[in-house]
């Protein structure tokens, strides 16, 4: 890397450096002075402001550096699941209560053929949310509202602990190994339908969503129609209502059928 000494080489270097400097200066002049001067947005406040704008110096939004402090919310409305979830006493109390009030329709082990939702192994916060909603009248059902009205907060937590502790029906043996419908896997972005599996398990699970496998088809279909018509409106942020409103009757039947058949013992229909 010796410094060039011969005159021809020196001319090469001089010519190269001068051309590069001239090119750079001309480009800077065009980019920072001439082009901005053609735009009223840039040139309204004079040449220095125009150069600063072209250089990307923030004008207005950079002046106040102190962000507006929002008031911090202290009220967190989430079902208090963690506290009782693992206590054997809570499970025992819940079991006693369930024996008296729930088994008639939901089955001795939380699974029934009476077209009621399966509760065995259901996430505790799901059961809490639905019972509280029945109690407060946010979800309507002639039987469930009457039953929930008399439940204390602790009763509800105990029931949730009990049902969460029951084993889910085995999902390995499935009557149907056909691939899930497209709506379950990928949804339909153009119609703003998120895939079922992105909340109800498969891709991801979101807090407060139930697992659906082996739920009665009739129940699932009824609930989807209730969401679509607005008869049921206890879904947070109207998530289910917004999704189902976009679905056709046959799509509702298809996804209900899919979840109903999942986990059903072979040969069962």
């Amino acid at each position, binding site marked *: 890397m010796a410094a*060039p000494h011969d005159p021809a*080489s020196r001319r090469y*270097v001089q010519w190269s*450096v001068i051309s590069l400097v001239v*090119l750079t200066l001309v480009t800077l002049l065009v980019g920072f002075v001439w082009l901005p001067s053609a735009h009223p947005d840039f040139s309204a406040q004079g040449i220095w402001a125009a150069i600063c704008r072209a250089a990307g110096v923030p004008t207005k939004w*950079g002046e106040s550096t102190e962000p507006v402090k929002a008031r911090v919310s202290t009220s967190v409305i989430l079902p208090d699941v963690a506290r009782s979830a693992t206590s054997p006493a809570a499970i025992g109390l819940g079991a006693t209560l369930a024996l008296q009030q729930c088994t008639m329709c939901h089955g001795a082990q939380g699974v029934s053929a009476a077209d009621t939702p399966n509760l065995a192994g259901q996430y505790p916060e799901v059961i809490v949310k639905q019972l509280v909603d029945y109690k407060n009248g946010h979800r309507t059902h002639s039987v469930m509202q009457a039953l929930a009205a008399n439940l204390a907060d602790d009763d509800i937590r105990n029931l949730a602990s009990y049902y969460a502790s029951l084993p889910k029906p085995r999902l390995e043996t499935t009557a149907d190994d056909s691939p899930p419908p497209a709506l379950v896997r990928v949804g339909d972005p153009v119609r703003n339908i998120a895939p079922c599996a992105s909340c109800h398990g498969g891709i991801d699970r979101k807090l407060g969503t139930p697992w659906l496998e082996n739920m009665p088809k009739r129940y699932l279909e009824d609930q989807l129609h209730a969401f679509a018509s607005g008869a049921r409106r206890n879904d947070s942020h109207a998530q289910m209502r917004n999704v189902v409103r976009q679905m056709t009757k046959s799509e509702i039947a298809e996804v209900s059928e899919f979840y109903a058949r999942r986990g059903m013992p072979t040969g069962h229909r």
Partner: protein
Amino acid sequence: MFLARKLVLAHFWVAFVAFALALVLGEWQMYVRSPLSGWVGNPEHYYRSVTAHGTVMGYVLPTLVAMGFGYAITELSLKRPLIGITWAWAGFWLVVIGTVMAATPVALGQASLLYTFYPPMVGSAFYYLGVVLVVVGSWVWVALMAINLRAWKKANPGATIPLAMFGNVAGAYLWAWTAVGAAIEILVLILPVALGFKDTIDAGLSRVFFSWTLHAIVYFWLMPAYIAFYTIVPRAIGGRLYSDTMGRVAFVLFLVFSMPIGIHHLFADPQVGAGFKFVHAVFTAMVAVPTFLTVFTIVASLEIAARLRGGKGVIGWVKALPWDNAMMLAVTFSFVMLGLGGAGGIINMSYQLNETVHNTQWVTGHFHLIFAGAIVIMYFMVAYDLWPQLTKCRPLSTGLIKLQLWTWFLGMLVMTMPWHLVGLLGMPRRMAYFDYTHPDLQAQAWTVTVSTIGGLVLMVSGLLFIYILAAARKGAAEPAPYTFSAAAHPGERTPLALNSFAIWVTMMIALTVVNYGFPIAQLATLKETSVPAVRIGGQ
């Protein structure tokens, strides 16, 4: 002679095996989003595959090819054993370990970031550390190229550096300075977040640093192809290099102009001022100069070959070119793709025209045509040309090579032309699936199918390339001594300035400071520019 044979072979084999795997992934990506297949169940799988494809094709393949080819050039052109072969092996293993380290989190879905990182997305720290190791391994190569050149100069005072070595070292210096941007981005901005020390990241500044690397890396990929144009093609087709000096001018112009132009990747980014975007657009246009010089010089060299073979007339000599020669075919295909891709590139770098094609399939079409087309087809030729030297095999089958070149060329056109078309119609890039039942998209569905077929042809061609190399019988023949192209005017005096790098490296760094200094300094000092990191892979 040629002590580094095993070293070069190791670089090439790792590069090409990784290339073949990434090629299969690429075709899988094409297939799952085409109408030929249902929607990919989990879009994350698609982006995982895109990340692996891009990381291998963008970092691993070109880096290893440039390194291996560089070691070969050092011994073959300087005609002395490579100094620091132990260090070279250490660099090689750093690249291999880095590749495995980066590939593992990608395969596990912990780093589906695409190879361009895209902060505020932040993936597994191992991915970034792997990329850093690949770069550090390649810096060993940069240092060895400088050391070998210096030792040769000391032993041959006043002698002209062979053109191949001159281009090789220009590429090494270019890469050393280019990689600094991404290295700063990873080490200073991303890793603290990936390691959990911070939860926010300055995405705008990160993108500016990455643009520092992002465009010049393209010219690092391109250097081996240009070295092949100047120093292998004329010899392989029985001609002479029209001008050795023009080659040097092209290499130093790449050194100066390819570096400070990356902000043309950020035309849609609000954090960079319009003035700097314009300046970068102008310097991007300057890169056309060494490209045109090269095309002119190489075509002139082809004409020399044709006239030596009895070609006559202003245009008539074209018929006398050795069209049955694989290298002739390759350079023709490469120039056609370079021409089409280069024209597209001029549209991309124009500040206003870019608006039309920004983030569309057009861009994907452009860089596949230029890199995977014009450049990688020359990587193939470099491997074919060196293979008898590396493995002492008999000359490779010209028929198979020509089949491989034809399929690569046609496959590339079939794949990228529909991408250009739908890009103009507005089809976005980086989509895991398209809803072809939508009336607006239905009309474009056929283009994705055609591209998939092009991709299939490319995959077959790439695997044929591996087959041709693997099927060569080792040790079957002692190769003739390797030669680079002879110049048409041997003994032409090379100006000292074109026989050294100091002045050009200085200009490269100075121009970088002018073009990047202010945007980086401003973004680094601006307060409240960080945003919450988006962690990938459920961390």
